[in-house]
């Protein structure tokens, strides 16, 4: 774990920069000699763009199957494709698009195999939406946790593909079919059942991500995309869709991805994400100065649009509405911002999302009361807070053990 920067560190670094600038300013230039870019031509164009070598954006990985989006380092609402979170069940398969096939069968008139070129010939659709893993809450995060460790398993892309409804009409889907199973061609041959209502409504078979082919880690060459629904059901490396009149009850929708409740029952097929938000700045490991601070973060709901995001800068005693960056899209991360004049005293800042259905993001206590002591890690979306210390250092507000 890297040590948080102190204000003294920052001040001494700033002083060093100023000193260098003074040395290099004998001709009155505002730039040092070493970084005066105005006196010789820059580099040529390149076939593939790269980030500035001064920027080091990385997804921290954990174990063999997870990497997280560094939300504390990002602006706006689109996640760069190479920083989209990953959650795999048996690694990332290498798939040659030339041999790729998608089989659609079961309760259909015409069992059909589509190639990738076939999928791309159909009328295309695009939408900007979040994709989130249902295990996206760092339940036991300590004070030195960044936003990526609290909720780095959600990312946002513009997804492009063919509407699943278009494929269903093409194969003559039976009106008696109520469920489909989607299957991947990874080494887990991952399967999830999806109700046909969702399949007909806004599901898509996506092959594009932010204008380019989907990245291998996100399901290249084609994946199921279910706006607003838990990532696991958005089957990657999609090879087969079978229509049926009942769910398949796969391992991933029975012993996994179900939500035990305090009353002794377990919610099954809890696909949709409830509204959630998090402040991504200021956040650990930042140090802030007294005066104006723009509090920034993201909010999203699987049920539709975010109606408002409330901010508290006094530990939850009072709340004011943040500004939402347009466009506010359904089932999408929206960027919120709130201007705050910090007086240099110890406090806590937090955000609370409300979606268009009126659903209010719950407190951790309320969530724990509903889910119980033995809740698993799925679909946990509590309000989280950052502690601001008088010296300006920001830490995650650690919660008592679940």
């Amino acid at each position: 774990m890297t040590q948080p920067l102190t204000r003294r560190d920052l001040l001494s670094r700033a002083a060093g920069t100023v000193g260098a600038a003074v040395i290099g300013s004998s001709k009155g230039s505002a730039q040092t000699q070493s970084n005066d870019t105005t006196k010789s031509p820059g580099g040529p164009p390149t076939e593939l763009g790269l980030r500035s070598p001064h920027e080091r954006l990385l997804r921290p990985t954990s174990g063999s199957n997870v990497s997280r989006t560094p939300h504390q380092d990002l602006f706006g609402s689109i996640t760069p494709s190479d920083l989209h979170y990953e959650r795999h069940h048996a690694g990332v398969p290498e798939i040659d698009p030339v041999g790729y096939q998608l089989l659609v069968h079961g309760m259909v008139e015409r069992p059909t195999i589509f190639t990738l070129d076939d999928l791309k010939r159909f009328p295309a659709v695009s939408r900007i939406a979040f994709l989130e893993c249902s295990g996206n809450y760092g339940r036991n995060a300590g004070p030195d946790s960044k936003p990526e460790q609290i909720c780095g398993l959600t990312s946002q892309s513009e997804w492009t593909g063919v509407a699943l409804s278009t494929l269903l009409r093409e194969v003559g889907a039976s009106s008696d079919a109520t469920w489909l199973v989607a299957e991947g061609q990874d080494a887990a041959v991952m399967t999830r059942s999806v109700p046909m209502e969702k399949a007909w409504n806004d599901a898509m078979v996506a092959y594009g991500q932010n204008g380019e082919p989907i990245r291998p880690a996100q399901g290249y060459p084609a994946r199921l995309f279910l706006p607003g629904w838990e990532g696991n059901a958005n089957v990657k490396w999609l090879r087969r869709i079978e229509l049926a009149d009942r769910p398949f009850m796969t391992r991933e929708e029975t012993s996994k991805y179900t939500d035990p409740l305090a009353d002794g029952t377990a919610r099954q097929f809890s696909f949709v994400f409830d509204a959630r938000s998090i402040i991504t700045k200021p956040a650990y490991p930042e140090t802030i100065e007294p005066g104006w601070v723009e509090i920034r973060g993201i909010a999203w709901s699987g049920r539709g649009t975010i109606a408002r995001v409330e901010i508290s800068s006094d530990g939850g005693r009072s709340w004011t509405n943040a500004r939402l960056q347009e466009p506010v899209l359904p089932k999408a991360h929206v960027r919120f911002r709130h201007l705050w004049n910090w007086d240099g005293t110890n406090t806590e800042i937090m955000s609370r999302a409300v979606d268009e259905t009126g659903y209010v993001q719950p407190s951790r206590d309320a969530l724990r009361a509903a889910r119980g002591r033995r809740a698993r890690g799925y679909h946990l979306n509590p309000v989280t807070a950052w502690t601001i210390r008088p010296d300006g250092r920001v830490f995650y507000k650690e919660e008592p053990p679940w």
Partner: protein
Amino acid sequence: MVRRQRTVAITIAGVLIIAAASHGQTRTSGSDYPERFGFGRAATHGEIDAWDIDVMPDGHGLPAGEGTAATGAGIYLRLCASCHGREGEGATAAPLVGADPESTPPFGPRYEAWRGDRPDVPYTIGNYWPYAATLYDYINRAMPSNAPGSLDADQVYGLVAWLLAKNGLISNDAIMNAETLPTVDMPARGIFVPVER
């Protein structure tokens, strides 16, 4: 693998009503769409059979073959124990065995009353898997994780039998096959409630 007959046992459609407000960003029922585009080609029975490996809770899709705890024990020790523990107690991979408390999932009021000062019970096949046939489906498609899809039907039935017997759900000499496996009574069968929406 599905036959086109209606099965009443586990139909929970109708409970699912998608939230009324539909955001039609990806809705495409364009009036200019033809009835069919004619893209793609007919799948052959052979192609479908090669990929259609799923097994339904009622046993549809289960192949011929059989196994018992005895035939599965050696396979388990050789292929599974290094990750799941010699007795299925869990190691680098999830625990598989443990049916305590009997007929109660490892959470909720009855569990808390039973637990007292005992350490918590993990989620296992014995207390959190609602369908025995799903074991066949999952092991057959995904296990062992370093060589998925490498087991034949008798081996999978043997592993399933060993796991069910270890969890106290069948006797040690019970033969698991396409007929018997779907009839195994799973303690967690009744705890799952589909979300209404």
